[in-house]
């Protein structure tokens, strides 16, 4: 059975009340959603909140999933919308570059302490993730979302434009601008270090 068909089978079983199918469905996607949350929010606590909101949204709308698109696309669209909602509510991260290293330090600690519970996670991997989070935090949310969708979810600009209700050219421009900012931040970081 292919992954897509397996998703559909699990959805059908979950709609019939199978808790086992629901748990299996969540397990298949929770890792991707959680890590997406880490990159978008920059800390484990908000990533956890975001993930729970996403799966609550999936649960409430599961009966509306028609199978026209892949379940993975559908769930990542929900995740995207929830991240935008969360940003509006909590103003997750500042659109301006950080002026205080203290805030960044808190977020690093958050992720690092979360990862330190896992003995197999090596220190350099944690540091790598912290560096990526630091870079992403320098972007405004709309650019961060496009980087997430293009680089980590491998969506096309057409799909991103459709998801964000913007033109394809706007999506391309935002992505390019975001990459340039990240490049500058990375170069500054190397110069300072």
């Amino acid at each position, binding site marked *: 059975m292919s992954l897509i068909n397996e998703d559909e089978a699990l959805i059908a079983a979950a709609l019939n009340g199978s808790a086992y199918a629901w748990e299996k469905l969540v397990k298949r996607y929770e890792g991707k959603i959680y890590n997406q949350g880490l990159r978008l929010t920059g800390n484990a606590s908000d990533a956890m909140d975001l993930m729970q909101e996403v*799966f609550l949204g999936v649960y409430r709308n599961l009966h509306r999933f028609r199978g026209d698109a892949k379940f993975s696309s559908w769930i990542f669209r929900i995740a995207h919308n929830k991240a935008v909602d969360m940003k509006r509510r909590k103003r997750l991260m500042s659109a301006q570059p950080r002026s205080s290293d203290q805030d960044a330090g808190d977020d690093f600690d958050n992720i690092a302490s979360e990862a330190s519970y896992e003995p197999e996670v090596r220190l350099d991997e944690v540091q790598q993730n912290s560096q990526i989070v630091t870079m992403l935090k320098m972007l405004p949310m709309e650019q961060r979302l496009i980087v997430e969708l293009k680089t980590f979810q491998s969506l096309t600009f057409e799909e991103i434009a459709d998801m964000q209700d913007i033109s394809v050219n706007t999506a*391309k421009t935002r992505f390019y601008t975001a990459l340039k900012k990240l490049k500058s931040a990375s170069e500054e970081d190397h110069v300072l270090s």
Partner: protein
Amino acid sequence: MSCPKTQFLLQEYFSDDLAPLAREELGKHLANCEYCNAELESLLLTQSTLRHWQDQRVPHWDRGLNLFRREHRAPAAGAGLWVGWQWLPTAASFAMLAVLLFNLTIVSGEHGFSISFGPAADLQAQLTTFQQLQREEMQSLVTRVEDRQDNSNVQLLQAVLEQTQQSTAENLDRIYAYFEQKRIQDLQDMRVGYQQLVDSDYETIRSLNQLAQFVSYQSEIR
């Protein structure tokens, strides 16, 4: 030194639907424009840095199972099918309590069961009838046991008698054979006795003859 085409061209570079001809033109420009090429290299390096993200394990959470089970009224893990029957012991307890409190009486008669609440008015009569029935039943049982015992005794006596008769006949045969054997033996003894007597008589006669001959001889001598 910069290039006025950099932004437009590099935006298109990351596009997914760039026509082959346009991509070829882009390649030519990048090969000739040092600035655009350097800019592209740095952007690709930045994107590569992002892709070094290492997925982190999800902290433990209930995966929405509590909500799911609550809304689907699914049984908790391990409860099995018995959850639907949990009311049964409680209902049985209440039923027993009602039987005790309302003094419920269930009587089985010829016309089926009858259920009554409170102390029964004809309980004594029912008890008398019940005792009478029990007595009759007991009498009937005793009679049947006696009949069965009589039959057994008769059969036993008959068996003993048959055995005794058989033994008596065998004993008479044995006595008769004994007497016959003794009679034959006596006849034989008698025959031997006669023979001995005859032999003795014969010896006596011969002795008498010898004596007579001796006497006559003596007479002659004289």
